[in-house]
């Protein structure tokens, strides 16, 4: 039995997760995390087909697992059920498509100008909505012409053995799909900040972490991605090179989901899990003193920081905050919402969009009332989503940090 399924027995039916669930709060079609999780699990027979499809309304934010006072892995149980559901039923082309951000990036980046113009045209979005069910109101990222890996060929290493310099002050950068194909500037700034702080940055071979596949229930493909990453990253981790990522969802996959949800076992995945850090987690643990000594430039602006669900699921607090708070004149407001609604690829789906938008309503309202200059959020899909629905620029905290350190994009 998969580990999270053991925790169904811990459920006392208290409904705290249901009360905290942002999706159940806005639609009756989702009976709530407890209902589709520890409860429904008792009715799922391993040799008979899944009786329920309503678990598909779960956005995977993970709030339920976080608030459970008894240790039930509610979100994990639900994503496992989604995986079973996908396996038993037909997967829509749309889900296959949005679950492969890397493949899309690889195809579109050589023709980025054309791809970007055409995909953002209104008739194109209308067509995408009508044919495969991608909501025309959902944000779609722009492709870059030159991916990050091409920009930093000299820092790409196939194995740690090829690294000639001292590996004591080296970090391996897990850029994920977004920093490679969609926001390479973010990757550049990551490397610049780390180098400014005295680290050598290497880019190990990697593919998409597999989260979009996993969230869409495509577990077999997600597992293949995970295995590939484990094979490539383990040698770096075993040399004691920390793996640092700026996408909180990718790093959470490496830390947690590969083992707990995809059920991968072994020394390699364990080593990777304990060697992986969120960018700001890494900074606050390893270069705390150096950061305290940095004299950040003033940044006269009003901003709101929204820690994304996936960051909260790391269980490390919000490490970016302590650094952002050192920036003079930056007026920082905190998000009062648990979730922006995007849910990775969830909000892109035509039928899910109204629910996702409704979930984000609280955050959008707070943002519009505060008269902000910009919003700060660690997760790329949340940034695109919030930007689309508030009209404000949304930055990764490291972009703000870079700006305050005079690092130009």
């Amino acid at each position, binding site marked *: 039995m998969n580990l999270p399924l053991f925790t169904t027995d811990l459920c*006392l039916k208290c409904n705290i997760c249901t009360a905290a669930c942002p999706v159940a709060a806005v639609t009756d*079609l989702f009976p709530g995390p407890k*209902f589709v999780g520890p409860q*429904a699990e008792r009715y799922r*027979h391993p040799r008979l087909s899944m009786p329920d499809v*309503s678990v598909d309304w779960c956005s995977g934010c993970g709030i339920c697992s976080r608030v459970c006072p008894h240790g039930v892995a509610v979100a994990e149980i639900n994503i496992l059920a989604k995986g079973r559901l996908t396996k038993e039923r037909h997967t829509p082309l749309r889900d296959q498509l949005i679950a492969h951000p890397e493949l899309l990036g690889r195809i579109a980046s050589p023709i980025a100008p054309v791809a970007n113009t055409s995909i953002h045209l209104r008739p194109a979005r209308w067509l995408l909505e009508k044919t495969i069910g991608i909501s025309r109101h959902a944000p779609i990222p722009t492709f870059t012409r030159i991916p990050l890996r091409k920009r930093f060929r000299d820092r790409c290493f196939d194995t740690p053995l090829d690294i000639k310099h001292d590996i004591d002050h080296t970090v391996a950068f897990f850029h994920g799909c977004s920093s490679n194909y969609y926001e390479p500037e973010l990757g550049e700034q990551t490397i610049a900040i780390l180098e400014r702080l005295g680290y050598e940055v290497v880019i190990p071979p990697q593919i998409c972490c597999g989260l979009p596949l996993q969230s869409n229930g495509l577990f077999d493909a997600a597992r293949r991605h995970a295995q590939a990453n484990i094979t490539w990253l383990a040698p770096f981790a075993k040399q004691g090179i920390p793996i640092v990522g700026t996408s909180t969802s990718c790093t959470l996959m490496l830390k947690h989901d590969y083992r707990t949800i995809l059920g991968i076992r072994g020394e390699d995945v364990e080593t990777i899990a304990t060697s992986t850090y969120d960018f700001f987690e890494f900074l606050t643990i390893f270069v705390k003193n150096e950061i305290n000594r940095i004299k950040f430039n003033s940044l006269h602006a009003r901003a709101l920081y929204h820690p994304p669900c996936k960051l909260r699921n790391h269980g490390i607090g919000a490490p970016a905050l302590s650094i952002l708070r050192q920036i003079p004149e930056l007026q920082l407001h905190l998000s009062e919402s648990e979730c922006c609604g995007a849910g990775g690829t969830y909000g892109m789906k035509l039928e899910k969009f109204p629910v996702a938008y409704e979930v984000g309503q609280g955050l959008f309202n707070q943002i519009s009332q505060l008269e902000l200059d910009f919003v700060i959020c660690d997760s790329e899909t949340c940034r695109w989503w919030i930007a689309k629905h508030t009209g404000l620029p949304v930055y990764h905290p490291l972009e703000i940090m870079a700006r305050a350190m005079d690092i130009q994009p």
Partner: protein
Amino acid sequence: MPVLSTQLLVIGGGSTGLGVAWDACLRGLKVVLVEQGDLGQGTSGRYHGLLHSGGRYVISDPTSACDCAVENRVLRQIVPHTIEDTGGLFLATPTDPIDFPDRWFAACQELGVSAEEITTAEALRLEPALNPRISRVFRVQDGSLDSFDLLHTLTAEIKRAGGQVWLRHRVEKLILNGNTIVAAEIRALDTDELLTIGADFFVNATGPWAGQVASLADIKVPIALGKGSMVAMATRPIHTVINRCRPSSDGDIIVPVGTVAVLGTTDVEVQQPTDTTIEPWEVDFLLAQGEILVPQLAYQRPLRAWAGVRPLYRPTTGELGETRELPRSQIILDHADRDGLQGLISVFSGKLTIFRLMAEQVMDLVCKQMNIAAVCHTAETPLTMTSRSFYKLPDRLAKLEVTTSHDLPQVVCECELVTRLAIEEALRFASTLDLDEVRRELRLGMGPCQAGFCAFRAAGIAHELAPTAPASGGLTPFLEERWRGMVPLGWGHTLRQMELTRRIYLELLQTHSLPEPTK
């Protein structure tokens, strides 16, 4: 005192009594059945849920084994909706007698109990939670059978055929005319009224109470009471019935029934049919034995424990053996033959699996004595039912799936997925406010929280239907009954749940200060 008359009066509303009444209805007799409590409140409602393949008895009780094998096939035809076709496995572990599996298998073949040996690898593929150290595995035709569903179906069928089923009616006196029983004096427990029913024939199918009922006619029945305790696990780690392949002993079976898995059983001789106290050693023993077959049980949550009392036959002559060693086969005592008392047959012992056969044999004897030529039709008459297919675990959840938010069901008991509509129907049908009765019909409050979250909701619904009755109607006894099953398991998971429930009812809702429910 009102007087009624009928052809046949059946005493006892368990599987045997209802089986007899149903058989009699099909033979065209006028029948009244009286039960002192609710349907299946005795042994029938307190069993582990196993539909025997016969395998359990091939060595110790070959007649029972053959009967079980035959009746297993019959019940699958006539009441499939009460049965889950789980299949069964007999597992030998390295610590069990090494020659037993071969002897057992040979006996199965000789008696016509279907069994085939499979490899341990195949068994583990089927049930990954099994102990990988098992040495031999046989596949049999076990199933699980929900006795409440069965009893409700039988009752509905009896009523449809013109028979009567009176619950909460206790026989207090048997009235003799010479050496013939002619009437019974019965107390309606709800109203405390006494009434007399005259009948041509009486069947005492009161299970562990058979001795007490017979004594009303000054007859002694050679009965021994064997208490069996069981523990239900909150989730099903296995979906096949698991038997230990060794000589019959305590703690050798795990039955997946409904949403739970039942670990059974112990066998302790008791003096009273109501003596269902569970000793701590029984719980420890059952859990320890269960872990040998399914190791992960050590980490899982025991839900509740209960005990049933087996009415067993112990001949007055011969040794006084342990109740475990007494035969399980059905006993039908013709008191005319045995005690010179006309008009009464006692039936007890046997298994729930063979209730139909027992009823057939009883009715054959009754008809012979009454000079009625009717023959038995129960084996080939399917009972009316909503579904003609086997019960399947996911069905209840599948039924609640909706595609629009307009037809959302109100789920009252979230563990067992009982809706408001179902509760309202059950309350109206049974014309009762007793939630425990609703529980037996719908499994209300039988899941992991043991009514912690549904009892107050259900009480509210009951109150809506009968606003003049106090809202406590049935609430306290319902909760007390749930609590009783949890106390023997009051540690870890269960203790946490109990503590939450206690706080909800005693501290938040102050149920202890509610007015006493009126009858």
